[in-house]
């Protein structure tokens, strides 16, 4: 009788330990992502203090210098300090996606909640609108908008915000739909509370963690898309420091044997995007675990 008990116990311990290990690793990755993003935000805020040079200071004599003590990441084709430009670039490169995510979240959550709450023709209309947006490639939409309003950060941010609405709206609708069926929402409805009050004070706060997870994931994607649009020349215009635009400008130097002007901003983009993905997954996982 004792033998099977010890056996089950040991397997139980094993599964418990491996589960802990997985959980621990997930936490460590999320923590690393938070630290990386914290550093990037700090760098963006402190850019004027920590950047060793003026990011737009052109000095053709110093063009394409390899990394040295004076220029830790070397200089670009116009002789500007690459490190200073990466540091200053953090501002636009983080603000751009933030604008995209804020815009798309605001509209997407409104559409999603409205859809889930009202149902019927409101839901049908909103869902078709979301599907049409889905079917339309986001970057193509952005290029169209840029073609109409001209290139620049503002028009690309607006364009991508529109393109990201369906991602936020779809997630919001599905979680709001489930939340709407819960007895506590029903109870508040039976109390005669207004739909506006129930959704804004009860439903939305309760689905906020799901929305946050999705928004964080979108932040990473928006960063790639904005960098891509800058790379193509639609987004941030030279000489403004932006990581995507820097990668584009650094292409020529790359061929000439100076990889730093393109690779440095490229590497930071990768770090930022991966961090946002990990953080988004981390939040989503946490939400799943607490709501399970």
């Amino acid at each position: 009788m004792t033998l099977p008990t010890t056996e089950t116990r040991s397997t139980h311990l094993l599964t418990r330990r491996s589960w802990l290990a997985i959980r621990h690793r997930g936490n460590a990755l999320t923590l690393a992502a938070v630290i990386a993003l914290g550093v990037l935000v700090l760098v963006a805020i402190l850019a004027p203090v920590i950047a060793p040079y003026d990011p737009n200071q052109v000095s053709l004599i110093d063009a394409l210098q390899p990394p040295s003590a004076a220029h830790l990441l070397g200089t670009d084709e116009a002789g500007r300090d690459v490190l200073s430009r990466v540091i200053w670039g953090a501002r636009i490169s983080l603000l751009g996606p933030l604008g995209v995510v804020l815009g798309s979240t605001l509209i997407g959550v409104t559409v999603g909640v409205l859809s889930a709450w009202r149902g019927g023709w409101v839901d049908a209309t909103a869902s078709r609108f979301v599907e049409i947006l889905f079917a339309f490639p986001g970057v193509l939409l952005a290029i169209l908008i840029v073609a109409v309003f001209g290139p620049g950060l503002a028009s690309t941010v607006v364009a991508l915000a529109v393109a990201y609405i369906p991602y936020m709206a779809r997630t919001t609708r599905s979680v709001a739909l489930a939340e709407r069926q819960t007895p506590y929402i029903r109870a508040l409805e039976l109390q005669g509370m207004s739909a506006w009050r129930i959704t804004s004070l009860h439903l939305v706060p309760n689905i906020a963690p799901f929305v946050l997870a999705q928004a964080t994931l979108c932040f990473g994607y928006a960063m790639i898309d904005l960098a891509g649009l800058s790379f193509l020349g639609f987004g941030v215009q030279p000489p403004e420091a932006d990581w995507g635009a820097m990668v584009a400008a650094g292409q020529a130097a790359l061929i000439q044997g100076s990889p730093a002007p393109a690779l440095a901003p490229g590497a930071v983009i990768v770090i930022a995007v991966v961090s946002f993905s990990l953080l988004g997954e981390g939040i989503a996982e946490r939400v799943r675990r607490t709501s399970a």
Partner: protein
Amino acid sequence: MSILTVDGLSKSYDHGRVQAVTDVSFELAQGGTLGVVGESGSGKTTLSRLITGIEQPDSGRIVVAGTELEARTSRRARHERAGIMQMVFQDPYQSLDPRQTPEEAIDEIITLHGGLRGAARTARRREVLDQVDLPERARRALPRDLSGGQRQRVAIARALAASPRLLLLDEATSALDVSVQAQILRLLARIRADTGVAIVFVSHDLEVVRSITEELIVMFRGEVVESGETSRVLRDPQHPYTRLLLSSVPRPGWDPDQVSRDRRTFLRQLA
């Protein structure tokens, strides 16, 4: 005057293919208690959803405190009705906002219905939470830190905060374990004695209904098969379905196989 009159109520789903409630009529006096019993699928949940206005009947009337429920209700009508009739749901784990403490939840309802603020609201909140015996510590805790019984007390308090004259409880004790169930039933009996609120208690549990209601209707396949005084119906059931329900209650010397045989016989006779 009766607090609740249900007259010829019918509701079907799936374009008439599923008849959930058929021609149900009953009346509940002010301050009275009515039990609605039946097995799963008997239509008792549909009946409670119709009474609260979550669903609209195909035909029939529901009159609450002299006012007939309209088919398409405005928020104002719902708000007015909420001041008369309140509901407590089965699942105590889902019937509270997970982000609200009991105090916040009660405050919200008091403000919504009474318009009370400040000290008057605090006093009313205390009164309502005292009424359901919620421990002081639990009043500022989030629902996840409350037990099932405590949550159901909060749900009852939330219903009482609107000072209703009719309380509809849909399987309100079914998710609780037996000792907690007894506490909640005692609590309801006391609240009724104190406030004179009328109670409709929907349940599959005959013992629970026996302990709390004076009148009883027995539902089977959407129809009322028997009704009357609870003690009389349970002591001397006239309808074979009521007898079957009673024989299904586990007790010493109880034979589940006999119940299954009785059930088959009953259904065969019906067909």
